């Protein structure tokens, strides 16, 4: 079950999105995330949905695979919806019982927030689905390169990120193994109240940390043995350079952001309270 977490994992396929320069994808994702907060009307959401659907189509990543990536954030989503729903007091009261009150504004914010969060996650996971961590690292490194002048260790940070991503599936597998081993020894992970359950995580986390440190040590040694000595003097196997398709992609995204902003603002479309 724990291996189902697909967030942040590369999905190999041959699509136009996979071939784009990672810098394009990074900047576009950022613009897309910002664009989600530029509108508050249903027309804006329609445009955003269409755009996202188009991108998913172009990425050739199966929709089911993307949805699977949403599972781990369900809890977060529910908490957000809950607070927005019951704690926003704005407009007409739709529902009232004991201490629970749902207002028009609350319902609207809750729904918008949920959609935004889901789009946010899908948008950013599409980037990681279509970009190998190494490309991602290269992209970040090149985008942030100017920071090197003020002594920010850009290359090192980028390398750390790519290694972290590489080890996600390995550590997940390990967690699974440790859980099974502890269950075999009679550990009870499923029942009990919140506190007991958190407590029962300790015998899983401790060996996981120990093994993670051991792995880190091994990996550092293996990297040194292969002459890794920081970013200086390193060449690239896949150096980044913009092509026509990258320029077109930039344009598409900019047009979308402006479009969604304008349509969200000036196209009045009202359905019930939304």
């Amino acid at each position, binding site marked *: 079950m724990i291996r189902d977490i697909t967030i942040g994992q590369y999905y190999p396929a041959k699509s136009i999105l996979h071939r784009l320069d990672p810098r394009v994808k990074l900047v576009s994702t950022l613009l897309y995330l910002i664009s989600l907060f530029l509108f508050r009307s249903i027309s804006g959401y329609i445009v955003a949905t269409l755009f996202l659907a188009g991108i998913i189509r172009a990425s050739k990543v199966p929709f089911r695979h993307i949805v699977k990536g949403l599972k781990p954030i369900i809890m977060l989503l529910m908490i957000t919806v809950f607070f927005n729903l019951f704690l926003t007091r704005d407009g007409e009261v739709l529902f009232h019982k004991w201490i629970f009150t749902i207002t028009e504004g609350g319902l609207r914010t809750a729904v918008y927030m949920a959609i935004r969060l889901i789009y946010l996650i899908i948008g950013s996971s599409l980037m990681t689905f279509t970009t190998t961590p190494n490309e991602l690292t290269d992209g970040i490194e090149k985008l942030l390169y100017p920071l090197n002048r003020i002594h920010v260790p850009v290359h090192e940070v980028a390398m750390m990120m790519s290694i972290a991503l590489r080890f996600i599936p390995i550590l997940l597998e390990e967690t699974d193994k440790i859980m099974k081993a502890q269950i075999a020894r009679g550990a009870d992970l499923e029942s009990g109240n919140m506190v007991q359950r958190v407590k029962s995580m300790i015998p899983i986390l401790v060996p996981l940390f120990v093994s993670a440190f051991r792995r880190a040590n091994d990996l550092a040694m293996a990297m040194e043995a*292969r002459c890794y000595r920081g970013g200086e003097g390193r060449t690239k196997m896949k150096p980044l350079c913009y092509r026509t398709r990258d320029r077109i992609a930039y344009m598409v995204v900019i047009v979308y952001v402006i479009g969604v902003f304008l349509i969200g603002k000036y196209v009045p479309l009202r359905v019930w309270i939304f």
Partner: protein
Amino acid sequence: MNMIQAEKLIFEYEKRDEEGNVVGTSRAIDEVDIDVKEGQFIAVLGHNGSGKSTLAKHINAILVPTEGTVRVDGRDTKKPEELWNVRQSAGMVFQNPDNQIIGTVVEEDVGFGPENLGVPTDEIWQRVEESLKAVGMISYRHHSPNKLSGGQKQRVAIAGVVAMEPKCIVLDEPTAMLDPAGRKEVLRTVQKLREKKNVTVILITHYMEEVIDADKIYVMDHGRVVMEGTPREIFSRVDELKGYRLDVPQVTLLADELRKRGVDIPAGILRKEELVRHLCQLG
């Protein structure tokens, strides 16, 4: 020419108590002398804690000698300015395949070494392709290493070292975490590399069957080299090997038992076919 030369190599590490105070030193390697010529296939055998892995790490300058010297391709590993040259001439493959693959795609991982060396982009691609072909993993070049079997992962790790074009490859128990099929796969790859590229190979292991093709075997125990010689010389001393807690291959063991019972066959038989031939000649 000597590829690797260790003279009176001693390595000590500090023993500490729980507060981190030094309570003494422990010798992991004790006056070891080793000579490896270019193109040789050398095996180092030893039980757990015999110091064989520590020795391997000296060849790659991950550890430097406390006393004595190690020279790799004529370069002293103690000199900091030679560090990267030493590491380039002696590539190293470790035990756990998961913990030495850095890339998330096979070809990117193989390219990691050449990238670090500052090889121009075109040449990196050429080297990656060549080394993946050499280990027979070219058809997996776009795959994620996580989905490969243990043996395949280890072959990718070997390709990663080969792409750095080292003169010598040190394999530190590369088969210890693999199943029998994976073990054979890795050994066959190493064998093929030797034939094609004429690299010097140093194989550290505790599986005796893996070393019968070696040019020379060193047996280590408690940080010392206790036996050295050709496989035939080593395997004819079955009782001595057992004393160092090493398992002799079954054929050798059987031949040895037969010889003790008075059957007239030579000592140090390594292969099944060999034993069969000798036994048939008896009748």
